[in-house]
């Protein structure tokens, strides 16, 4: 079983520990991972901010890089949503049929991490150990774009020692929204504040999600406020075992 | 303004030209078009929905209808009632001041305490009463100005789902009013207040004209 890891531009730069966790986790499950060093970004930031011309080249790059991959695994629901939802439209606008065909052939081989585990590997018990109180925030792209459904919950339910506390309004957007967090920083912060109320009221030690973008936003506020909750990507929980616990977390 | 008409139509035609949409007859209609409740359950549902809206519901047989109407009018404590011109004569209970609508003015209708009408259909799923404003249902103003409305609904007129009502219309009505409870507003802090304009009191008599022997009066 081989898979190529698309780490995503922001994980590569800001959350390499999530990438390391994905590697340790998947290798533990018997997957031979590749990492194509030509990768950079999926183009989401540009496409969603209105810079569509710029997004074209990033989309082309992705499809060309991975056209022969057996499977591509991506620890970010928003990047997968970009690829699944917007690449077709971009290539159609470009009028490039060859690319569209390549994309059509590639798409079934692109997986978000929880999809890769549940659908492609067929496992929900990854042998993880994480003895903490944890709450789960449903990142919007995963929830409504990819319809990940109960996959994260199935995975979390098998983590030994983990106590999962339901998050009120778990499906309400945290307010990150990419460049929205800058262009509408005040409203983004108001949404963050509302989300934090729900997170804090769970009294969980960790808030997890499938996207570090949400967690960077949430974690940035919990750190600012000295709040007693830390953020951690689901990959790091799943990678954590009794013998090799998760890396020291932020 | 025929200039505007032509310009608008031209703009629309340019905007949609070259499009190929599915024909109207092929539009997907996989929603529920027919209910599956039996008659007793359907009536039960209608009563339940009406009562949720605080409409007062009583049931009777066709033979008992005039007496039932008289009883409802009596309990209302009201005296002057307006009646549509085609209301069955036997419904005009004695001892009340009836104003038959042969062209009453707004002021005359406003002066009435209540109104009695028939209806075209009932939709159990939403507790909706449908008026097509025939002679026995009356002009729209009759069920609008008086504060108290008694509506006679035959059980044979009740369907379960909204699409079944539409299927029943021999042709589209020129006028229709769909009443699902007395008027309400939630404009002040989302607190639902009943009876803003239109009749604040809705009374329904369900007439069992489909052979149900049992009569249930839960109030």
């Amino acid at each position, binding site marked *: 079983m081989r898979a190529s890891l698309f780490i995503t531009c922001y994980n590569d*730069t800001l959350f390499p520990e999530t990438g390391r966790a994905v590697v340790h986790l998947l290798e533990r499950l018997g997957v031979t991972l590749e990492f194509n060093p030509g990768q950079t970004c999926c183009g989401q930031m540009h496409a969603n901010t209105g810079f569509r011309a710029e997004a074209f080249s990033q989309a082309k790059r992705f499809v060309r890089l991975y056209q022969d991959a057996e499977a591509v695994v991506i620890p970010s629901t928003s990047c997968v949503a970009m690829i699944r939802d917007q690449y077709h439209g971009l290539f159609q606008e470009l009028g490039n049929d060859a690319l569209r065909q390549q994309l059509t052939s590639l798409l079934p081989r692109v997986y978000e991490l929880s999809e890769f585990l549940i659908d492609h590997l067929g496992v929900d018990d990854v042998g993880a150990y994480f003895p903490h109180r944890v709450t789960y925030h449903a990142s919007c792209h995963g929830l409504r774009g990819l319809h990940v459904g109960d996959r994260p919950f199935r995975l979390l339910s098998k983590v030994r020692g983990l106590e999962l506390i339901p998050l009120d309004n778990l499906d309400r957007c945290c307010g990150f929204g990419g460049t929205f967090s800058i262009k509408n920083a005040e*409203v983004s912060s*108001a949404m963050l504040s509302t989300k934090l109320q729900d997170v804090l009221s769970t009294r969980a030690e960790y808030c997890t999600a499938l996207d570090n973008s949400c967690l960077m936003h949430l974690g940035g506020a919990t750190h600012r406020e000295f709040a007693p909750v830390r953020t951690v990507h689901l990959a790091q929980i799943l990678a954590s075992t009794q013998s090799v616990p998760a890396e020291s977390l932020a | 303004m025929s200039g505007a008409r032509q310009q608008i139509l031209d703009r629309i035609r340019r905007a949609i030209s070259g499009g190929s949409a599915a024909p109207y007859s092929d539009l997907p209609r996989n929603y529920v078009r027919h209910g599956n409740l039996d008659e007793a359950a359907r009536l039960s549902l209608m009563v339940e929905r009406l009562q949720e809206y605080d409409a007062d519901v009583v049931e009777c047989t066709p033979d008992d209808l005039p007496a039932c109407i008289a009883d409802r009018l009596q309990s209302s404590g009201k005296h002057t009632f307006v009646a549509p011109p085609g209301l069955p004569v036997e419904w005009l209970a004695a001892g009340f001041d009836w104003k038959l609508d042969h062209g009453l003015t707004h002021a005359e209708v406003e002066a009435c305490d209540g109104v009695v009408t028939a209806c075209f259909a009932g939709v159990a799923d939403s507790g909706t009463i449908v008026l097509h404003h025939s002679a026995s249902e009356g002009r729209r103003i009759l069920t609008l100005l008086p504060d108290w409305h008694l509506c006679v609904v035959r059980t044979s007129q009740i369907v379960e789902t909204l699409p079944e009502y539409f299927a029943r219309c021999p042709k589209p009505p020129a006028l229709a009013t769909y009443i699902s409870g007395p008027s309400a507003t939630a404009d002040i*802090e989302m*607190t639902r207040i009943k009876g*803003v304009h239109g009749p604040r009191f809705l009374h329904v008599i369900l007439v069992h004209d489909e052979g149900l022997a049992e009569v249930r009066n839960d109030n």
Partner: protein
Amino acid sequence: MTPVDLDPRTAPTFPQAALPILRNAQLRKNVAHATDVIQAKRARLVAEKTDWQQLRTAAAAIKDDVLGHLDQYLVEFEERCTATGGHVHWASDAAEARSIAVEILRKEGATEAIKIKTMTSTEIQLNPALEAAGIKAVETDLAELILQLGDDEPSHIVAPALHVNRSQVREIFARRMGLADLTDDPEALTAAARAYLRKKFLSVDAAICGANFLVAETGAVTIVESEGNGRMCLTLPRTLIALSGIEKVVPTFRDLEVMLQVLARSATGERMNPYTSLWTGVTPGDGPQNFHVVLLDNSRSSILARHTERQTLRCIRCAACQNTCPVYRQTGGHAYGSVYGGPIGAILTPQLMHMDHAQSLPFASSLCAACYEVCPVKINIPEVLIELRAQVVDRERKQAARAFDLMYIGMRVANSIFASAWRFRLAQRMGRLALRPFTHKDGWIHALPSLGSRWTMTRDLRRLPDQTFRDWWAARPKDKV
């Protein structure tokens, strides 16, 4: 209270308008409460409706069919309405629509007109035009009455006064209706409105309404309401003017079986709203004998022409998108600077303005797609938002001033960085270096300059780790499986 500007041509940008509202705890509480209530009711009813998704599919398909044949359906409606005694007018824009309405009323010698809530009349700014012509517009929806008497503006499509609480209403009514002893009990407030308006209903001989649906097959107009003021306006006066966007048409009477089911549940969380009225032209002896429909284009035909944006016109004005939107929850409708706010407003308003105004609105969203999930006619609002953002940027990037705009510069630079792996690695190194001076001993960044300060105003940022993922991977012993 800060004066509210709902004219997209002059309203402040969304971030500017939102700021004072975010500091208004009362308003945020009112909006959160109201949207929670309607959302919960809607969710309950949708859960019990086993064919809800099939209804949405049918509703979207019906609307797409209408839009794809709009000219035919409008002409059919006009024929049927005219044949049954109505008068149909066509208005290319707001100014034409205003002048048609004013002319009709002037001919009748009307000095007052009672109105049912219609967003369309606010869109075309009808009331000031009526006032200027010596015709007093009297709003009769309780919420619109509250706003009119309180010199306020609507903030929600279905519950326009949801930003006002009971004591604020009490104050307005007591002052404007001369009811010093009025309590703030919603029952008492409603009773006061009822008495005040009844006088109007029975005396004013002209009314203005909108339309929820125009039935092409029969020429009928349908209006959906809760309070009964609609029925009053539609039945009692002699003259009735219905203002309707051209997209409000449905093909047949029976199509209402779909539209009515989805509208009530989406708008107010009810299986059916209290009163729905349908009338066709003129019925002798029953209702207005002088009946006019004004069909309004006002940029809708332009929206129709655009492939991705056309779905905007499916909208049936239910406001489910507003109720579910996490952005709207924080700001209410006034921040959108338009009578159409929330998610639908973010795509409709700039398009009604030919993208000349309200350009900040497509960016007033985190693209969470909660709106798309609840839209009864399946408008993919995020898809349209992204398309409109591209249009705004394409226009703006040609402007000379953008050469100095950090966002534009940043995006161009980022693109060239992402275009090559070595440039990307270099940028990662440079980023680490650039942020070092801002990194505290605890390994976190608390304050950044320029655009970065928009992040750090409320959030810390963890330092860029010394080793990127790709460097770690590259350094791994290659025999590791």
